[in-house]
């Protein structure tokens, strides 16, 4: 540190070991404008040791087979990758050490998504908060609400599985990628809210929230960065959920129906889906 420096670090005590409640108190102290209502702390602890622990559990072949299932294999590495605690190159090397390239390919392809989003971000920073292309939903951007309704941000929509996913996000700062797609589609298409409002909400809470992968994925769901809107039905949630997700008809009625029916309901200005 420079001897001329007039400022002093707020923490400069090598090997200082704070317990978690001290860390939380320190963060609150250093964040005077943080709303006091927000009091959730993730069970995921930020440290290199935690990242390496997750890396040690990596099973790329299983990941490739089960990754779309909400109770399937996930790496738990994304918050650490987001903040550069560990790199995609480190993870790729570990994957290639564990499996043959053929077995690991699907997993490494998923890692490549991050590289792809980052490249887009570097080259097109304007993509992050602006529609890359028009909506392909039969509606224009002005037909979508600017703000996220409170029932969504508070996990009180009345749609059981959606509320469950949002509650998990609020509590842990992490939800499975497939659950992210369900929530995003619900926000954009069932509630007709601009993707930007949902993307901002996710970035507030996701420990791995990255402007590029988060916002461009929201645009993919919304159809402003894809050929068509992404949507789903209750049957699809059932298929990919474990027993812990409430997928009963009576608590998720708005999601129930065939793809054709839901398409007609969500996108009445488009040609019927056949």
């Amino acid at each position, binding site marked *: *540190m*420079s001897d*001329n*420096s*007039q*400022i002093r*670090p*707020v*923490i*400069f005590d090598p*090997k*200082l070991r*704070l317990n978690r409640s001290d*860390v939380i108190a320190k*963060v609150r102290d*250093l*964040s*005077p*404008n*943080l709303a006091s209502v*927000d*009091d*959730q*702390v*993730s069970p*995921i*602890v*930020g*440290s*290199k040791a935690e990242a390496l622990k997750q890396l040690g559990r990596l099973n790329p072949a299983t990941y490739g087979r089960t990754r779309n299932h909400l109770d399937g294999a996930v790496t738990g590495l994304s*918050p650490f990758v987001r*903040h*550069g*605690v560990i*790199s995609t*190159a*480190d993870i*790729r*090397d570990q994957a*290639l*050490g564990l499996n043959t*390239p053929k077995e*690991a390919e699907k997993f*490494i*392809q998923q890692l*490549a*998504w991050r*590289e*792809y989003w980052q*490249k887009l*971000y*570097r080259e097109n*920073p304007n993509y992050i908060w602006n529609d890359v292309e028009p909506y392909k939903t039969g509606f224009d951007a002005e037909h979508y609400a600017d703000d996220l309704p409170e029932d969504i941000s508070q996990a009180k929509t009345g749609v059981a599985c959606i509320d469950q996913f949002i509650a998990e996000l609020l509590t*842990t*700062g992490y939800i499975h990628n497939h659950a992210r797609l369900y929530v995003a589609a619900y926000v954009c298409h069932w509630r007709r809210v601009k993707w930007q409002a949902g993307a901002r909400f996710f*970035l*507030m*809470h*996701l420990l791995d929230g990255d402007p*590029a992968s988060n916002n461009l994925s929201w645009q993919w769901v919304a159809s402003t960065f894809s050929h068509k809107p992404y949507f789903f039905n209750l049957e699809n949630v059932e298929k990919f959920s474990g027993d812990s997700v409430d997928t009963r008809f009576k608590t998720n009625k708005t999601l129930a129906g065939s793809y054709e029916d839901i398409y007609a309901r969500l996108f009445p200005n488009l040609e019927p889906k056949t």
Partner: protein
Amino acid sequence: MSVNDGIIWVHEDAISLDHPVVAAAGPGAQPIFIWDSHNHDALGYSLKRRVFIFECALDLDIPIYAGTPKSILREVANGRAIYAAPSPDPYIAHVLIDLQKDHEVVPVDARPFARIASDVDTRRFFRFWNQAKKTAMLSTQELEASQNTSRDDA
């Protein structure tokens, strides 16, 4: 550490001392982290995001300052070189551009995941992946060796 050694800005996109920027800056360089709560406020970050980031920074046993990166980096560097991982985040990129007015700023890239031509078609992921996979499926060691071979060939 000498007065000529640089400082390393460990920012929120690269909270690591394993990043190549640390080796590039040399053993005397001082890494620092800056806690900018105004930026977190602007992004609406929840307590859990802030705690996670703070824990990652705390884990490195490096000085953590609170305030605005531009002014803190200027004051701590005091004319010395500033090393940092480049980032597409305009918040980080603008700080580094501004510091270039009066400091030597040395950006150092992360270890490469793949070798990708700058003109690769990025309109859809699979066009990108079709090109990236040739080198993304190599280990970092193999990738670096193939990079050196292509340099030697050039």
